[in-house]
């Protein structure tokens, strides 16, 4: 009953006209910056933060939160339409989402992404309301050794991201991990692979890498073949998912929601792992494995649900402990403090209207996002009809402006060009960019936590086996490896024949 009372309090706060309005402004801005390549939610929130100083605290936080989860939503749109993931979690959506768009099913992909995100957002909001404090305590139990094992599990599981050769996928992961090491080593400050360019000390910008490897390389590939492109334009048929689509997406959406809600709670990169893991799980248990990578709708529904659920539950450490899980939330901590609220375990009891109001607003925000995005699908799909010679220079232009405007670092723009060419060469060699991106995102986490765990244990590696969470995760990793390798060995003969065809 107490929960019910709390929810009533929350909704009565969140439904105030002003709060609904700013919730809408937040999700609208979030969608916009999610769609625009380059400008992420972090830069947007940073720019808008001073404006919110004059708002009521709850209104300010509702809007800032809206920008964050709205951006997760918007990021999938460009990933599907033009193969351009704006956030690391959207990179997975691009795999099958963009294939669907190439087959003329962009509308269905966008609709499934929107509906999946909505369902996931709703469930995750309930999870937040019911179980936030205990979940937060679990998250705090994760130490560096546990994160290392979790990331390792994520990497192994995600080898399934590859459409073709597993060996090439492994090579791409390794290359991604190497690219992730560029910049200053955080433990010693030693610059690595920077070639004495101070601008590279901060490492390679994720957005530049993603725009280059996915966007620019895709454009080069399209330019090379006039026919390919024509098919995209001519075959935009059904805007909405068919009954078959709906049937196929129920399971992935629910599983993605569960995975995302659980992993999102972890402050050290849980939300990045959520969508990758969901994709891997769907591919593993699907009866149509061969469709993955060629426009399987499950490959859009699962990861999209997972990343939206994770976006929601990643607020748990912030709201219950005052600990930010994402740069955007670090900014929100600043917003709390400026409004005279101490972020921490006391927020629930001291500011119940704010706590429950923010949670209720997330559900309202999800409703607004669906209302906003479903009608836009027609418009987005029409974008594919823009003549290519107009569309592609603009995409590159926006991407370049976007990445440059965030840190004013010219190397971020050079990186787009460099990775565009590299991406094209890799595609020509039959290597895919997705595993590379995964290695790039997870590699630094893997290294950082491995070294941190060993520093804390004074070089004793047994810590990975003696900590229960880490031990369980490592066991799962070994199991995943066995499951991945066994069928490969068994099927080797068939594969050899298939390849000779």
């Amino acid at each position, binding site marked *: 009953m107490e929960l019910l009372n709390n929810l009533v309090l929350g909704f009565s706060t969140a439904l105030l006209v002003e709060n609904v309005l700013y919730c809408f402004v937040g999700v609208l801005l979030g969608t916009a910056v999610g*769609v625009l390549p380059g400008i992420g939610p*972090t830069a947007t929130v940073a720019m808008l933060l001073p404006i919110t100083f004059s708002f009521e605290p709850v209104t300010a936080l509702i809007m800032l939160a809206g920008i964050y989860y709205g951006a997760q939503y918007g990021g999938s749109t460009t990933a599907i339409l033009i193969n351009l993931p704006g956030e690391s979690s959207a990179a997975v959506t691009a795999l099958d989402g963009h294939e669907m768009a190439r087959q003329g099913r962009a509308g269905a992909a966008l609709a499934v992404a929107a509906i999946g995100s909505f369902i996931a957002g709703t469930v995750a909001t309930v999870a937040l309301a019911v179980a936030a404090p205990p979940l937060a305590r679990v998250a705090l139990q994760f*130490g560096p050794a546990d994160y290392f094992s979790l990331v390792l599990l994520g990497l192994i599981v995600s080898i399934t991201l590859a459409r073709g050769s597993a060996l090439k996928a492994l090579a791409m992961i390794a290359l991604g991990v190497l690219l992730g090491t560029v910049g200053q080593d955080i433990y010693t*400050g030693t610059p690595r692979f920077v070639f004495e360019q*101070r601008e590279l000390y901060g490492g390679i910008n994720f957005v530049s890498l993603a725009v280059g490897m996915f966007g620019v390389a895709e454009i080069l590939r399209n330019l090379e073949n006039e026919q390919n492109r024509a098919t995209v334009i001519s075959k935009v048929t059904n805007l909405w998912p068919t009954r078959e689509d709906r049937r196929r997406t129920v399971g992935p959406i629910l599983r993605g929601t569960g995975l995302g809600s659980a992993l999102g709670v972890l402050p050290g990169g849980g939300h990045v792992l959520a969508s990758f893991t969901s994709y891997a799980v769907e591919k593993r248990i699907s009866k149509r494995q061969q469709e993955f990578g060629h426009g399987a709708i499950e490959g859009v529904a699962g990861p999209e649900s997972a990343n939206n659920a994770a976006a929601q539950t990643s607020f748990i450490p912030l709201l219950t402990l005052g600990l930010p899980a994402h740069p955007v939330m670090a900014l929100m901590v600043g917003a709390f*403090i400026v409004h005279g609220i101490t972020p921490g375990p006391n927020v629930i009891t001291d500011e119940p209207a704010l706590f429950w109001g923010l949670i209720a607003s997330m559900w309202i925000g999800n409703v607004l996002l669906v209302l906003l995005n479903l009608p836009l699908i027609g418009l987005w799909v029409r974008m594919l009809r823009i003549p290519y010679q107009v569309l592609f220079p603009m995409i590159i232009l926006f991407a370049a402006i976007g990445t440059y405007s965030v840190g004013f670092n010219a190397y971020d723009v050079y990186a787009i060009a460099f990775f565009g060419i590299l991406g094209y060469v890799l595609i020509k060699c039959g290597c895919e960019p997705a595993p590379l991106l995964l290695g790039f995102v997870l590699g630094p986490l893997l290294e950082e936590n491995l070294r941190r765990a060993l*520093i804390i244990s004074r070089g004793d590696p047994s810590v990975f086996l003696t900590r229960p969470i880490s031990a369980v995760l490592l066991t799962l990793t070994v199991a995943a490896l066995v499951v991945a390798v066994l069928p490969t060995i068994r099927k080797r003969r068939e594969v050899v024949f298939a390849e000779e065809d």
Partner: protein
Amino acid sequence: MRTSSRYRAAARMIAAIGVVSLAAACSGNGGATGGGGTGGYPDQNITFVVPFSAGGPTDTVTRMIAEPMAAKLGAKIVVQNVEGAGGTVGAGEVARAKPDGYTVLMHHIGMSTAPSLYKDLGYKPLEDFATIGLVTEVPMTVVARKDFAPKTLQELVTYVKANAGKVTLANAGIGAASHLCGLLFQSAAGVKLQEVPYEGTGPALTDLVGGQVDFMCDQTTNTSGQISAGGVKAYAVTTPERVKSLPDVPTTTEAGLPKLQVSVWHGLYVPAGTPQDVVQKLSEALKAALADQKVIDQMAKLGTAPVPATAATPQAHRAKLEEQMGTWSKVIADSGVKVS
């Protein structure tokens, strides 16, 4: 017809997106270039370069004072974040900028430590910049996981000396304020500890609250929330006086470690060679901003305060920079840290 109207709808949409992203790009780049005489200074937008990411503590402080300074100067101030390499990329850019007062750098304690940490800095803090004035000095706090054995700063010193092989000291990365404070703690206490670097304060504080590491030293802006909520325990603040928002936490002098004196001081700089009257105008505007009640209130909420008017001068700022460069070159040399 139908197709062409579709084209137009889509083109309109693309144009709208273009306007938004151009606006975002330009909002940070108003007056980066251009010269103009000093007679009518300022007659164009002034760019404040923050060498750290948007939304960080230095960025927040800059945006707080930019508005009242702009009002006083009668010109628009644009805040631009030029990130990288511990603030040295942004500082280097301002060092090379035209000395006309339209490119101003906001930097913190890192200005005085960079020469000791980086081999080929490309600029010299004392020779390539003119100081405008100090802005704020953010106090730091020595905090530990809540179940860590020592109860007072004295006990902490004794404990870490006895258990130097076991204790872990977290920091937010090489060259970060928490790293510098940690080095000073080790030098003041006469002990060498195992440091655990993190990428930023957020993750470091998370692991401290979760009990994965033992203790750290960080700015009140980051720690006061967790201290009042009981997520971590505080031993001392590293300033001569107690901090208003943490009345129960003693100073390091009171707690018996007077050598641990450190604050994250912020100051404004222009390239060396900027005309004297321009420096004066900027310094006057800074003083006015620091006396602004809104600025005082906002800083108080972050657990800090503007420096007194006597410190917001080019002379006081330069003296601080010289003194700090001396202090840190010794502490850093003793610790053996070298970034590149």
